[in-house]
């Protein structure tokens, strides 16, 4: 919260409650060694809240606790909280918890004269000392007021009790029923001034939401909002409204959408890890199929996926997706995929968020799918849905979880519905549209935006086939992008043209071929003629040569003979 951190030793010592989320809001828990007042209407969860404080103290923090019950008997309490997984009897046997029930029966009590509550003090003191308790709950001390008539004495005694509790150094919770115009009927807030927490249970549109608010926390910073909380089989979970800082870490890692051609449209690699993706489209445009592909791809990467279904039951989704060859069943079996199906009207919006939060914390998925978020509008108005989604996206980003929402757009009315509100929050927005043309409806997909990556600006047709989703290459006809049967017709036409052209080409080729053969033959003939001529010329040349040679020889012979003749003459001389 504050940028300046108070040094550890100067900060107020706190006792962690162990209640999911509460310690984050209170930055550590309840004021240590002081009483805290928890007020709220009947059924707002005060007793549960305080018993969880005691149980968690005993089990998680090694701090034994005393529960002083004015309303319920020990056995009743044990049964009531057994449904939350708390085994009170075991903890009691282990001397980690002591429950003391104080019964005030108006009919068998008479008051006369002066008295004090030393009996209570002694009982409490004895209980605390017997197990070395660090935590104490008084639930609900106001019952004393209905059992006893002398309120003057009671008030004085309560004041004494609270300061006595402080002296004992125990961290105490005092519960009180909400009164009219006051936090509690008996104005207990006058005595307990360190920390006051208000529990609320409101019903809007017939849907109830539990909320918690810290009214005051002396000497400590704390969240001041109303925080929704949930009571389920694990006790109380408070949802801290996530930080308002925009300082989440970002990842450069990319994850595939499960549809190769869609990845291609997204710069070839798919979505950023930890980003948020919105798929919006009209009814039956294939949003869930895209989501299922994404889930399938995630599971195939061995990354777990949590699928929140608000429209269809898991079995229905699995069956439907099987028809397009996306087998979710096997991932479900392996435990990589988890469905959480609920009717939006089951809880209020805030409660849904608490449920998301809780399941995500539990399952730790890498991918979360919400299908469709528009159904949540039925339990809240769009602005509320937006605020919920902001918080959800924020939380998921912090956990580096990739989230895909699908949103239904209505063609004619509610034009500015959730999807446009959400669109500004998400990182990637895919829009799936129906194109109604020429007596048929076709699906087209385009990327409205995708932060931080090169993405295709084209409207692509996509088909849902027996083998899943296929995004068809854009077919540009003379009149623009063609889809459906128009595309097919254009393709056929193009094919015919191609065939004709090929035929013509083939014929030309043949002509050329035959021409070549003829020419080749001619060339061969000329070549052989030339060879003949060459031969002839050669022959003449050789003969000439030979003749010349022979002539020379004869001449030389002649010369020799003549020389001999001269010699003979000379000899004879």
């Amino acid at each position: 919260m504050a940028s300046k951190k108070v040094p550890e030793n100067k900060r107020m010592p706190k006792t962690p409650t162990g209640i999911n989320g509460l310690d984050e809001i209170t930055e550590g828990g309840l004021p240590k060694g002081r009483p805290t007042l928890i007020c709220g209407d009947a059924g707002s969860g005060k007793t549960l809240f305080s018993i969880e404080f005691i149980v968690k103290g005993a089990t998680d923090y090694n701090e034994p606790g005393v529960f002083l019950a004015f309303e319920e008997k020990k056995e009743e309490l044990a049964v009531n909280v057994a449904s939350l997984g708390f085994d009170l009897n075991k903890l009691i046997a282990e001397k980690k918890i002591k429950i003391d029930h104080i019964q005030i029966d108006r009919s068998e009590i008479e008051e006369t004269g002066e008295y004090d509550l030393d009996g209570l003090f002694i009982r409490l003191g004895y209980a605390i000392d017997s197990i070395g308790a660090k935590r104490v709950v008084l639930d609900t001390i106001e019952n004393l007021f209905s059992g006893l008539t002398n309120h003057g004495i009671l008030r004085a005694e309560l004041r004494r009790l609270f300061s006595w509790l402080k002296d004992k150094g125990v961290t105490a919770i005092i519960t009180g029923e909400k009164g009219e115009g006051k936090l509690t009927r008996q104005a207990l807030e006058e005595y307990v001034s360190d920390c006051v927490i208000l529990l609320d249970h409101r019903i809007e549109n017939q849907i109830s939401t539990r909320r918690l608010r810290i009214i005051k926390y002396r000497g400590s910073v704390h969240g001041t909002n109303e925080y929704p909380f949930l009571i389920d089989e694990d006790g109380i979970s408070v949802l801290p409204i996530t930080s308002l800082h925009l300082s989440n870490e970002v990842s450069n890692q990319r994850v595939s959408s499960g549809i190769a051609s869609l990845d291609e449209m997204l710069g070839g690699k798919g979505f950023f890890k930890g980003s948020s993706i919105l798929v919006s489209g009209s009814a039956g445009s294939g949003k869930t199929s895209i989501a299922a592909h994404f889930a399938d791809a995630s599971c195939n990467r061995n990354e777990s996926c949590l699928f929140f279904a608000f429209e269809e039951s898991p079995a229905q989704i699995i069956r439907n997706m099987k028809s397009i060859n996306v087998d979710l069943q096997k991932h479900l079996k392996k435990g990589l995929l988890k469905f959480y199906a609920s009717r939006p009207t089951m809880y209020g919006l805030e409660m849904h968020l608490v449920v998301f939060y809780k399941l995500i914390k539990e399952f730790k998925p890498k991918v979360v799918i919400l299908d469709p978020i528009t159904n949540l509008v039925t339990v809240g108005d769009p602005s509320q849905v937006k605020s919920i989604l902001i918080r959800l996206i924020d939380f998921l980003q912090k956990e580096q979880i990739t989230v895909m929402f699908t949103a239904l757009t209505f063609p004619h009315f509610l034009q500015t519905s959730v999807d446009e509100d959400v669109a500004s929050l998400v990182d990637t927005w895919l829009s799936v549209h129906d194109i109604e043309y020429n007596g048929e409806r076709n699906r087209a997909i385009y990327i409205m935006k995708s932060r931080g990556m090169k993405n295709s600006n084209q409207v692509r047709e996509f088909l849902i086939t027996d083998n899943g989703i296929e995004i068809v290459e854009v077919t540009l006809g003379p009149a623009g992008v063609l889809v459906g049967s128009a595309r097919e017709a254009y393709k056929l036409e193009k094919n015919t043209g191609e065939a004709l052209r090929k035929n013509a080409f083939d014929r030309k080729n043949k002509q050329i071929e035959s021409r070549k053969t003829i020419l080749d033959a001619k060339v061969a003939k000329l070549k052989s003629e030339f060879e003949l001529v060459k031969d002839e010329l050669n022959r003449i040349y050789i003969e000439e040569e030979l003749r010349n040679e022979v002539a020379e020889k004869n001449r030389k012979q002649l010369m020799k003979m003549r020389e001999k003749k001269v010699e003979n003459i000379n000899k004879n001389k």
Partner: protein
Amino acid sequence: MQSKQWELKLYVAGKTPKSMTALKNLKKYCDEYLAGQYKIEIIDLLKTPQLAEGDQIFAVPTLVRKVPVPMRKIIGDLSNEEKVLVGLNLVPVKTAL
């Protein structure tokens, strides 16, 4: 009723003026209305705190009538005689006398 033995317990926390007053008052009423038929047990919770739970004591002094049944409790120093007598169901007895 008269024939029965009355078992009274007075829970106190130390010898405070309030508890002394309560004991004094109690003895006075018992001697007056239940002479010879009563037994008073004084329990000091400072010494035996574990006993407080059994009789559901949260205020002191508290007078508990175990026998005869039903159990009755009177909180306070017992200074109002009429209230004590009504509380212990002794008034009808008184009119009968």
